[in-house]
């Protein structure tokens, strides 16, 4: 086990590593996405109560899980950057924020399109929906705060504090359906197992995995641009083949 992980905390080494591994995430993400959609629409049966409308679950649940998961990953990177003063950690947090915000948006959007036919309302000020909306605003707040401070290292520190404090919202979203009486249904996947049809489970897990792989690929792609931007005055950037062209 002679891998020196600290080597990759240097932006120059990580820039090259990220460039190499992106296809290893992007290609399986595409394959799993197609397989998951196929299973969700052509293999999984109709729902006894909700007919075909329930098929929104295959995108709604993975997007919701990822919106929360990516927030925690973003907050963890931000905290690492704050504590150890590592530039790359802060760059990763910045790169994760837009993708996390997109997943939160997709969660809310698909939720509205599911809520309208099932509950009769696009939106209700319910504990689960409201806390997910707050999550989207936390992502926006992180992005806006970071963009509003000129000194990039100060921006990293201020945004990191916001991300860490905001992390308290994630368990609130997760447990909201248990703590409060809400219109939103209970957890679909429980630690004790699930009551779903096997093909429904497969479709959901394939799309969850596809979403995770997609998030990794697109974040690594974005962080490479952020690294270039922040390191533009260094020798190693000047010597890159893509810069020399």
């Amino acid at each position: 086990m002679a891998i020196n992980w600290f080597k990759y905390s240097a932006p120059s080494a990580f820039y090259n590593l990220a460039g190499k591994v992106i296809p290893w995430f992007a290609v399986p993400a595409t394959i799993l996405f197609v397989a998951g959609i196929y299973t969700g629409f052509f293999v999984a049966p109709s729902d006894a109560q909700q007919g075909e409308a329930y098929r929104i679950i295959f995108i709604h649940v993975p997007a919701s899980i990822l919106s929360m998961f990516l927030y925690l990953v973003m907050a963890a990177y931000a905290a690492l950057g704050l504590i150890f003063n590592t530039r790359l950690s802060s760059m990763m947090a910045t790169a994760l924020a837009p993708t996390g915000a997109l997943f939160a948006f997709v969660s809310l959007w698909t939720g509205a399109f599911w809520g309208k036919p099932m509950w009769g309302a696009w939106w209700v000020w319910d504990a689960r929906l409201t806390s997910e909306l707050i999550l989207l605003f936390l992502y926006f707040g992180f992005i806006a705060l970071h963009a509003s401070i000129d000194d990039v290292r100060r921006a990293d520190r201020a945004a990191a504090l916001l991300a860490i404090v905001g992390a308290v919202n994630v368990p609130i979203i997760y447990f909201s359906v248990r703590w409060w009486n809400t219109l939103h249904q209970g957890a679909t996947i429980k630690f004790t197992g699930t009551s779903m049809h096997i093909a429904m489970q497969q479709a959901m897990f394939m799309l969850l995995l596809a979403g995770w792989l997609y998030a990794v690929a697109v974040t690594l792609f974005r962080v490479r641009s952020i690294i270039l931007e922040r390191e533009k005055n260094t020798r190693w950037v000047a010597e890159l083949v893509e810069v020399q062209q």
Partner: protein
Amino acid sequence: MNWADFFNMGGYAFYVWGAYGVSLSVFIIEVLMVRHKRTVTLRQVRLLNRAGE
């Protein structure tokens, strides 16, 4: 089940395709945006480099 039934989604076509269509578009737009950002960033870095030479 034929294709017309499939697209009809048991009467929920607007909701199902509205949810999937927008979600898919959002991800496609994100991919285009990160690619655009890379093109723009590389162009800036090249210009800076040439100015410094």
